[in-house]
C-alpha cells in the first residue's frame, strides 16, 4: 500500500520534471523522483540500495545543476506540434501493449521465484562468512560483475576527461600559433 502511494508521488514528480519550462526546476523535480526511489527501496527491504541511491542522487543533482546553470534558454514550440505528439504517443502506446503481454508471465507481486538465490541464502554464511548477503553476492559469488562495473566506471572517467580536455588543448595550440 505504501509503495503505491510512493509510486504515485514519483509519477507526479516525473510529470512535473518533464513538463515544466524552467530547466533548473526540472532538474530539481528529477531529484524528487530519485529521493522517492530511495524511500521505495527502503520499504522494499533493500537498505544497501537506499543508501547508495541517496548519495548518488545528490552527486547527480550537483553535476546536472552545473550543466544547466547560467544556460537557461527558453523552450520553443515548433510548428508540427500535433504530429510530433501524436507519433510519440502512438509509439508509447505500442510499447505499453507489448508490456501488457509481458506482464502476464511475471510472478505475482510478493511471491518471487528464487531458484538461484535459494542456494545463496542457504549457504552464503558458511561459504563466505559475510552476514550481509548482498555483499557476499556482489563480492564473492558474482564478483565478475563487479570487475566489469569497475571497468565501465574507469572508461566513463577517461571518457569525461577526454571529452572535456582534448578540444581545449587544440584550441590553445591554435591560439599560440
Amino acid at each position, binding site marked *: 500500500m505504501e*509503495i503505491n502511494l510512493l509510486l504515485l508521488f514519483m509519477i507526479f514528480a*516525473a510529470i512535473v520534471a518533464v513538463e515544466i519550462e524552467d530547466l533548473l526546476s526540472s532538474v530539481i523535480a528529477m531529484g524528487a523522483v530519485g529521493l522517492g526511489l530511495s524511500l521505495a527501496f527502503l520499504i522494499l527491504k533493500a537498505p544497501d540500495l537506499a543508501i547508495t541511491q541517496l548519495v548518488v542522487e545528490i552527486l547527480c543533482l550537483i553535476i546536472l545543476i552545473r550543466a544547466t546553470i547560467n544556460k537557461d534558454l527558453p523552450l520553443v514550440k515548433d510548428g508540427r506540434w500535433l504530429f510530433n505528439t501524436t507519433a510519440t504517443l502512438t509509439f508509447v502506446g505500442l510499447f505499453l501493449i507489448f508490456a501488457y503481454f509481458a506482464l502476464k508471465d511475471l510472478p505475482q507481486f510478493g511471491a*518471487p521465484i528464487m531458484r538461484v538465490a535459494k542456494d545463496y541464502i542457504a549457504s552464503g554464511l558458511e561459504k563466505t562468512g559475510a552476514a550481509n548477503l548482498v555483499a557476499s553476492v556482489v563480492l564473492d559469488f558474482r564478483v565478475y560483475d563487479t570487475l566489469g562495473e569497475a571497468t565501465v566506471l574507469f572508461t566513463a572517467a577517461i571518457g569525461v576527461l577526454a571529452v572535456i580536455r582534448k578540444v581545449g588543448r587544440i584550441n590553445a595550440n591554435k591560439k599560440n600559433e
Partner: protein
Amino acid sequence: MSEYILCLGLFSIGLYCVLRKRNIIKIIIGLGIIEYAVNLFLILIAYRTHGRAPILDKAQDTLNIVDPLPQALVLTSIVIGLAVTALIVAIAIRIFEKYNTFDITKIRRLRG
C-alpha cells in the same frame, strides 16, 4: 499487480520525454527517469510479502528473506548510471560550447 503497472507508467513518462522533447537536458532527465523505473522494477520482482532484509543476524533464521540477487545487480547498475550521466553531461556541455544551444534540431541543421 498494480505496482508493476505504476512502474510501467513511470517508464512511459521517461520514454515520452526522450522521444518528444528537443532540449538535451530534458533528454538526459528522461533517460534518468527510465533508469529509475528499470531499477525499481527489478527490486519489485525481488520483493517477498512480509519479507526481511537480506542481512543475517545471530538467530540464524534464513526463512522469509527477500531475493538478494537482483539487489546486488541493481547496486552496480546505480553507480554505472551515475558515471554514464556524467559522460552525457560532459558531451552536452561540449555541444553547448560549440553551437551555443541545447536544441537538437538546430544542431542537426548546422551540421551539413
